């Protein structure tokens, strides 16, 4: 079975985001960009399925600017087989991303599409579920365990109260949570090998998908700042503070 893994290029999670002075967005000029951490987990899961003999081929796809090639190369170096870049210099919303991915899925016929549960820039947490709806496939979101057997997949999901397990008919959608696995680092030889793996370029128009945004950004602002408070010297002073704050009687 083929596995499709969409990967997104985002601001590196170690970088503190700065809001642009003109209020149009977050400053992404000259800052480190990386693969969305949840997507690294998705790539890793696909590779493990291949190592177990469940997956036959791993196709990674990204929608974004030319620089997203780097992100795809990272995925290829981890162990994906080939890549598709759908070039869009304008931002594409999850609904548009899902529509493009649906077209890719129709062409590639994967048994599973494994996505991140959310991208750490826009924090939308939508794309996988939207793709499920568009394809009419089942969805196992926020996965901490994935087990494929025959023509179904059991997904253990991290939910508010604990864990929940669902069984989906394949083909199906999985979105990854943090504890699904620990992604590997690409080795130097594999980074070299990845350079010769195939990478195809497409555009949204090739798929006949209209990706005109539905949301417009009116402005982007910094959140209200908290004032740093006081330091106390010992437990007695801490209890005194708790009393003034009314936390303890």
């Amino acid at each position, binding site marked *: 079975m083929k596995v499709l893994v969409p990967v997104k290029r985002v601001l590196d999670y170690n970088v503190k985001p700065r809001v642009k002075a003109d209020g149009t967005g977050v400053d992404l000029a000259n800052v480190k960009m990386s693969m969305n951490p949840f997507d690294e987990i998705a790539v890793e899961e696909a590779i493990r399925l291949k190592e177990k003999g469940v997956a036959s081929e791993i196709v990674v796809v990204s929608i974004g600017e030319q620089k997203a090639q780097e992100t795809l190369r990272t995925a290829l170096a981890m162990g994906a087989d080939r890549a598709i870049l759908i070039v869009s210099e304008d931002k594409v919303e*999850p609904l548009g991303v899902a529509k493009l991915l649906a077209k890719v899925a129709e062409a590639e016929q994967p048994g599973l599409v494994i996505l991140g549960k959310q991208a750490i820039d826009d924090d939308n947490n*939508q794309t996988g579920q939207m793709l499920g709806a568009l394809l009419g496939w089942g969805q196992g979101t926020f996965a901490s365990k994935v087990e494929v057997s025959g023509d179904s997949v059991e997904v253990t999901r991290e939910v508010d109260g604990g864990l929940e397990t669902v069984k989906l008919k394949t083909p199906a959608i999985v979105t990854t949570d943090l504890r699904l696995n620990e992604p590997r680092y690409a080795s130097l030889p594999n980074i070299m090998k990845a350079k010769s793996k195939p990478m195809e370029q497409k555009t949204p128009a090739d798929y006949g998908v209209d990706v005109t945004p539905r949301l417009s950004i009116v402005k982007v602002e910094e959140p209200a700042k*908290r004032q740093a408070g006081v330091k106390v010297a010992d437990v007695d002073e801490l209890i005194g503070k708790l009393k003034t704050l009314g936390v303890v009687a």
Partner: protein
Amino acid sequence: MSVLVWVEHDNASVKDATLAAVTAAGKLGDVVALVAGHGAQGAADAAAKIAGVSKVLLADDAAYGHGLAENVAPLIADLMAGYDAFVAPATTTGKNIAPRVAALLDVMQVSEVLSVESADTFTRPIYAGNAIATVKSSDAKKVLTIRGTAFDKAATEGGSAAVEAVSGKGDTGLSSFVGSEIAKSERPELTSAKIIVSGGRALASGENFTSIIEPLADKLGAGVGASRAAVDAGYVPNDYQVGQTGKIVAPEVYIAIGISGAIQHLAGMKDSKVIIAINKDEDAPIFQVADVGLVGDLFKIVPELTEKL
């Protein structure tokens, strides 16, 4: 405008997260509550009493019993012919279902709404809450998930809405519920606790969580939370995690013990009213947001604090 609100429930009663969603929906227009479940008359009766709910729709079917998105999303999408907006709390259930509804309606969802500025304009956090975006939707119908900490809870008494039965296509056959491990705890739920005591990697073991964090929480009647590092290390279960990718909390008091204050953790708790931090590193970032900080060894400080309270 008429608004359909997803009621989060356990078939017998309504979960608190619903109440903030009702308040947010009320800012848009007339609120109709949807209870989709199995044997869910109890939840429907409870929803009918929520102040501000004008009608309750009850879709009672075995296919809806576990809130499987594959089954409930088409039900909601069909009902939406009669509504202008669909509003769900941003719980794991709401986040699972709402985007599926949005795609069926060909609508771009607005996630984790913090405020309703007008009928089509909302604020929402991006980049782990390091920026707040004001977004305007051009879609004819709106699909929103609501951040529970950003809206007051509607009163659970005072309403007297009628309950009307509705039905949908039922089971799509795409998915089935296998089982769940839902932690049962005597402690207050994290998203509604007034006080939260949270522990980080510094606790070093599950036993230390039990012997150091829990007694303090017991003394304060507090809920217990954790950083991702503590959850990943297996000290506590996943539902304890506070942060960008865990639970978003805003209690009266948040006590962070042995937590460094990574932006992903701060994203989940920085709207708490009072933040108290205990950390041995005086430069730990958590102190930049803490109202009261105490520098020192948690293994000495916390037992002493618990004893003296």
